[in-house]
C-alpha cells in the first residue's frame, strides 16, 4: 500500500510542480470559461447559446464542451506517465522495486485522476459562483455534473495511460490518445446521421449518453457508473498487462 501511495504522490506532485502541466491546465480552464461566456455550444444537434446571450442560470454549455476539451486536455496529462518512464529507463527500476505492475498502474491512474479532479474544480466552480451570483443556479445539477465529468475524465485518463504505455515518445502517446478519445466524441456527433441500428450502439458507446444526457443534467444513473467503470477497468487492465508483459519480453 505504501508503494502505491508513494507513486500516487509522485505522479500528483510531478504535475503540480510541472510548469507545462500548469500551463495546460490554465489553458483548459480559460478555454472552457471563454466558450461558456462567449461562444456557447453551436456544435451538432446540441445548439446552446453562450451565457451572456442566453442569460440562463445553468452550466450546460461548459458541460457540453467538456468531452471535447478532455480530448485535448487529458492526453496532455497522461502522455508522459509511461512513455517518459520508458524513454528515461526508469521503468526498469519501477519493475525492480517491490511494487507490482498493477499497483503502479493504479497509482499512476489515481495521481492523474486526482489532478484532473482539481483542474475540474478550478474550471467549473468559479463559473458556478459567477452564475449563482447572477441567477438561481441549481447547485445539485452542478455537483452532479462535476461528479459525472470526474468519472468521464477517469475513463479518458485510463485510456490515455494505456496508450502512453505503448510508446516511448510523449508526442506519439499524445496523438494516439487524442485520436482514440476524439473518435469517441465524434461518434456522439454522428449519431443523428447514422442508420438507426448503428445509431443506438454508437450513442450508448459515446460520452453523450453517459454524461451530457444524464449527470450533466443532474441525473445519476447506475448505467453511467457501469460505462465509466468498464472503460476504466479495461484501460487499467490493458495497461497492467502491457507493463507486466515487459518482464517476459
Amino acid at each position, binding site marked *: 500500500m505504501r*508503494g502505491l501511495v508513494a507513486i500516487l504522490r509522485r505522479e500528483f506532485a510531478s504535475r503540480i510542480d*510541472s510548469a507545462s502541466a500548469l500551463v495546460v491546465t490554465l489553458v483548459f480552464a480559460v478555454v472552457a470559461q471563454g466558450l461558456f461566456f462567449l461562444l456557447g455550444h453551436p456544435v451538432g444537434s446540441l445548439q446552446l447559446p453562450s451565457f451572456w446571450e442566453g442569460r440562463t442560470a445553468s452550466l450546460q454549455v461548459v458541460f457540453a464542451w467538456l468531452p471535447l476539451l478532455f480530448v485535448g486536455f487529458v492526453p496532455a496529462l497522461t502522455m508522459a506517465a509511461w512513455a517518459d518512464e520508458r524513454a528515461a529507463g526508469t521503468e526498469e527500476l519501477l519493475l*525492480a*522495486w*517491490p511494487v507490482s505492475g498493477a499497483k503502479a498502474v493504479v497509482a499512476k491512474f489515481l495521481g492523474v485522476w486526482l489532478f484532473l479532479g482539481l483542474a475540474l474544480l478550478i474550471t467549473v466552480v468559479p463559473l458556478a459562483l459567477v452564475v449563482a451570483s447572477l441567477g438561481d443556479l441549481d447547485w445539485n445539477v452542478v455537483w452532479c455534473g462535476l461528479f459525472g465529468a470526474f468519472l468521464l475524465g477517469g475513463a479518458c485518463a485510463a485510456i490515455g495511460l494505456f496508450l502512453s504505455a505503448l510508446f516511448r515518445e510523449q508526442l506519439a502517446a499524445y496523438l494516439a490518445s487524442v485520436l482514440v478519445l476524439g473518435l469517441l466524441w465524434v461518434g456522439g456527433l454522428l449519431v443523428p446521421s447514422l442508420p438507426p441500428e448503428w445509431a443506438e450502439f454508437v450513442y450508448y458507446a459515446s460520452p453523450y449518453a453517459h454524461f451530457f444526457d444524464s449527470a450533466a443534467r443532474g441525473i445519476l444513473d447506475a448505467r453511467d457508473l457501469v460505462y465509466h467503470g468498464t472503460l476504466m477497468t479495461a484501460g487499467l487492465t490493458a495497461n497492467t498487462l502491457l507493463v507486466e508483459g515487459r518482464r517476459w*519480453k
Partner: protein
Amino acid sequence: MIHASGLYKRYGDLVALDGVSFEIARGSVVGLLGPNGAGKSTTMKILTGTLVPDGGHATIDGRQVLPGDAESRRAVGYLPESTPLYRSMRVDGYLDFVAGMLGLGRSERKREVARVIGACRIGIHAGRSIGALSKGYRQRVGLAQALLGDPQVLILDEPTSGLDPAEVVHMRELVKELGREKTVLLSTHVLSEIEATASRVIIVAGGQLVADGNPLQLARKKSARLILLMRLGVDDMGVTDEEIGRELYDAAGVKEILDVSDLGGGVKRCAMRVERSVGSDSLQGEPVAELVAARVVKRGWHVSELSWEGLDFEAAFLELVEAHRASREAQA
C-alpha cells in the same frame, strides 16, 4: 546468497542467455564480465525480477525471484545501466520516494534517507534537483537508492560508466567498502575495475558462462610465463647470491631462477619463473608465492616485497572470449 541455475533467455531469434549457472556466497564482491551483448545485463535483470527467464531460475537468499514476490526484490538493491533517475525531483525527495516504494514508514524513511545520503556522501546536494547534478553525483544518487532498506545483495550494472577518473576511484572505494558486509555483483567493461574491486569474476560470452574464478588465477592460467618478483632482506648474514638462488630453486613450484641481484643495504632482488599452480588453491589463489615466501622466512630472511610480473588479466579475458567465439563458430 545468489543462486542462478540454468538461466535461459531468448529475444526473438537471439539467444541472450543459454544455461548460465553460478552461485555467489554472502559478503563478496563479484564481477560480471563480458563483451557487449554477452548477457550481463539480461542476467542482472533476471536477478532483480525485471525480466522473467524462459528457462532456469534464480534465487536470492533462498527465495526464488518471481514477478509477484516482493520479498526477493526487497532483498536486492539495483543500479541499472545508465542510472535512470527522475531528474526533475530533488535528491532527498527522490530517495524518500524510493524508500516509500520499499514500504518504509515515515520515520524509517527519514532515517534511511539520512543514512544513504551519508554513505554516498551526497549531503551537500540533498536539496538540489537531480537533473542539475554532475554525472558522478547522479551515479551516487543511483547507488544511494540501491542502498535504501539495507538490502543484503547489491546488483550494479556498470556503476562507473561515464565517470571521470576521480569519481571512478571514489566509486570503487565505495563498492569495496560495501563488499565487506554485502554481496555485490557488478558488471563493467573496465577490466582494471574488476581487478581492483572483485575477488571473483564470472565471464560470460554469447550468453554462456566462459570462466568463473579469481581474476589473478584466471590470468595465471592464461599467461605464457609466470614471473614472481621478490625483494629479500638478508641483512649482513654473508649470504651469497648463489646460495639465495639455490634456496629459491628448491622451493616447490619454482622452475627457473632468472635473476638474483644486490640492491645494497642487505636487500636482494630475485626473479624466478614458477609453475601455474602448486598445491591447493586454498592459499588465496597464490600458493606458489606463499610457498616461496614461507621457505625464505624459515631461513630467517625478510620478504619486503612480493609481486607478479607479466600477469595480464586483460589478455586472459580476451583469450577466453575469443576461444569461446571460435568454438561456437566451429560448432555452427
